[in-house]
C-alpha cells in the first residue's frame, strides 16, 4: 500500500478473518467499510476499530445472495470511499458434504454465495477499478478448489470456479494497474474450523491478516497460506485420477 489514502471494503466482516484484516489495514490508516449481514455485530467491530486506530469506519448491510441489491450497495460504497478503493472478500458458506449429496437448496446457496455473489459484486465494482490508479482486490478462496475431494467437492468446486474467475479478472484488470490476489488458505483458526477433527498447524486470524497484508505489498497473485500448503496441494494435485478416486480424503 502506498502513502495514498486507501479505503478498504471488507466483505464478510463479521468473521474473525474479516475483523483481523480490517484491524490490520486500519492500523496503517485506511478508511474502513464493513459489509455483512449481522448489523449489530458489525457496529461493534466498527466502534472497536474507530477507538483503537482512530480511522473512519462505516457499516453497510450486505447479503451476497441478494443480487438485486448489489447496485445499491455499490452506490453506498462510492459515497463513503475516499482515495483508492480496495476490496477484501472473506465470506463463504460450507454446508456438510453429506447434506449436499442430496439437498439441492444447500448446493444452490453454496454456489450463490461462494461464486455468484462474488462475481456479481466484482462485475459491478470493475468500473471503479478501471477509473482509479491501482488498488487491490483480495479474495479468500480455498485449497479445496485445487482438487475435487469426496469429502468436500461441492464447496471445492465453487472455489475452483472462483479461482478461474479471479485468474481471468486479474488479466482483465492488469492494464489498469489493479492487483487481484487469490488467497488459498489451509487451516485457519476460525469459527468455521473450530471443533473440526484432523486440523493441524492452524494459523490464528491475526497471523493470517499480517501475512495477507505483507503479500499485498509484494503484489502476489496467488498465495497459499500457511505457505507449506503449496507443497501439500502440489502433491495432492499430482496424484493420478485412477488412484485419487479410491482415496477418501
Amino acid at each position: 500500500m502506498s502513502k495514498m489514502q486507501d479505503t478498504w471494503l471488507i466483505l464478510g466482516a463479521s468473521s474473525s478473518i474479516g475483523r483481523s484484516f480490517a484491524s490490520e489495514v486500519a492500523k496503517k490508516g485506511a478508511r474502513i467499510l464493513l459489509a455483512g449481514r449481522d448489523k449489530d455485530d458489525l457496529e461493534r467491530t466498527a466502534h472497536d476499530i474507530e477507538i483503537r486506530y482512530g480511522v473512519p469506519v462505516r457499516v453497510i448491510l450486505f447479503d451476497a445472495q441478494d443480487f438485486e441489491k448489489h447496485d445499491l450497495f455499490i452506490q453506498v460504497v462510492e459515497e463513503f470511499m475516499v482515495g483508492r478503493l480496495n476490496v477484501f472478500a472473506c465470506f463463504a458458506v460450507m454446508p456438510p458434504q453429506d447434506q449436499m449429496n442430496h439437498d439441492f437448496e444447500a448446493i444452490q446457496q453454496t454456489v450463490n454465495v461462494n461464486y455468484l455473489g462474488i462475481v456479481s459484486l466484482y462485475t459491478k465494482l470493475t468500473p471503479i477499478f478501471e477509473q482509479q490508479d491501482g488498488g487491490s482486490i483480495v479474495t479468500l478462496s480455498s485449497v479445496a478448489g485445487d482438487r475435487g475431494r469426496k469429502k468436500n467437492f461441492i464447496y471445492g468446486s465453487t472455489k475452483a470456479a472462483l479461482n478461474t474467475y479471479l485468474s481471468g479478472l486479474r488479466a482483465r484488470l492488469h492494464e489498469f494497474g489493479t492487483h487481484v490476489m487469490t488467497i488459498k488458505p489451509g487451516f485457519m483458526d476460525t469459527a468455521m474450523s473450530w471443533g473440526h477433527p484432523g486440523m493441524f498447524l492452524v494459523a490464528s486470524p491475526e497471523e493470517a491478516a499480517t501475512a495477507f497484508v505483507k503479500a499485498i505489498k509484494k503484489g502476489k497473485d496467488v498465495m497459499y497460506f500457511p505457505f507449506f500448503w503449496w507443497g501439500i496441494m502440489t502433491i495432492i494435485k499430482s496424484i493420478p485420477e485412477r488412484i485419487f478416486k479410491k482415496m477418501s480424503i
Partner: protein
Amino acid sequence: MKWKNIAYTSWGATTETEVQAGRPERVRDVINYVEQSAKLETHLLAIGACKSYGDACLNEDANVLLMERMNRILDFDPRSGEITCEPGVTFNELFELFLDKNWMPPVTPGTGYATIGGAVTNDVHGKNHDRDGSFGDHIKWIELVNSKGEIMRVSARKHNDLFRATIAGLGLTGVITAVNFQMKEAPTNAVLVRYKRMNNIKDYIDRLIKARGQYEFSVGWIDMTAKGKNLGRGILEEANFADTNIEYKRLEPKKIPKIIPGFAINRLTTKIFNNRYYHRIPEKGLDKFVPLQKFLYPLDNWKNWNRLYGKKGFYQMQCVLPDKTAELSITRILGACHTAKISSPLAVIKTMGSEGAGRLSFPMKGVTLALDFPNTSRTLNVIRNIHEIVATHGGRIYLAKDNVLDTATFRKMYPNYRDFMNTKDSYDIINLFSSSLSRRIEL
C-alpha cells in the same frame, strides 16, 4: 455452532479438567451456544483467561464458552472516561489503549492478563481498595445472555437483583456480552513507591490500618519463613502517582521453561529468597519511581510462573478479616503454617475499605491475606485449619482463589448466599449456568 473437546487447568493447576468448549465470536454465537446447551441439558459456564486459582473457571464434564474472541471496545468517552467493552478485553489491553490518554481501569487484580468478564464475576479488588472499592463499584450496566437465550441489560435501576447477583456472581447468572464502567484518572504512567520494612505482624497491621486510604495504592509482602518476634515481618509498599511520566515499554513476558523441576519452590529456596527480598530494602526505607503496570503486575514478567510449583500445581488461600480480629487471626494463620512446615515466597497483605456491590462479593472492611501453598500431602489440612480460623473470627475466603471450602463454611462466610440463590433460581430456572465450584459449594 460447534464444540471442541479441550482439557485445561485453572491458575493453580492442581487438576486438569475436560470439557466441550465453544468459542463465540459475537453475541449471536453466544445465544446459539446457550440454546444448544439448554437443549442438551448440559451445564454451561463462560470463562475468561482462567486466572482464577481454584475451580471457579472449571466446569468438569460440561460445556464452557471461551470468551477470548469477544474482545472489542464498544464505546469510550475520552472526556468522562466511561467505557463499554466486551468481556474478553484484558486489563493489559486497557492500559495499552488508554494510559497515554490518562485513563486506567478503576480497579485491577494483580495480573494484567485477567479479563473484564472475570473482573465482574469475581468482583475483583486491587491495591486501591480502601479508596476505590472493588470492580463492581464502577459498573453502570452489564449486558448478558440468560439461560433462555435472551439479551438483558441490567443495572442498579433495571433488574437490580440480577445486577447484584451478576457482580461477583461467578458466571452463574448468564454469559456477559458487554460491560459499561467508569475508568480511573491516571495523571501519569508511574508511581512513586515508598518501600518500608515492617518488623512484625503487630506493627504491620497497625501501620496498615493507620495509613488506610492515605495513599493511592498500598500492598504488603510477608516473609512467611520468619518466626518468633519476627513473625509477620515484611515489606510494605505505599504509592502515589508520580508527578511526571517515565519512559516505559512493556516487554513480552518471559516463559518459564518446562525443564524447571517441581521442587523449585521449597522451604529452603523460599527461606533464601525471602531473606534477600526482605533485606533488599534498607532499614530506613526506600523511595523509587516505578512504571504503573510494573507496580500493579509484578509477577507478569513471567508468563507461566505457576510452573515453578511443579506438575502437582499449588493452592492459594485468600481471606479477609475484620480490623478487630485481624492481628489475632493472622498470627494464628501464620502459626498454623509454621506448625505444618509449609511456606512459600508469595504472601500478600492489604487493607480493604468496604463491602462490595455483589451478593457474593468478597471484600469487607478489614485486612486481607493471600498465601500460596505448594501442593504437598499436608497442604489441604492446613488450608482447612485456616478456614476454621477465618470462619471463627468473622472473616471470609475469596472464592476466586479457592477449591477447598465446604458448603457449611461457605454459607457462614457469605450470609447473602440465599438472596443470591433466589435471584439465580428466578432468572435461570433450568439451572443451566453452573461450575465445578458452584456444584462443590451447592450454589
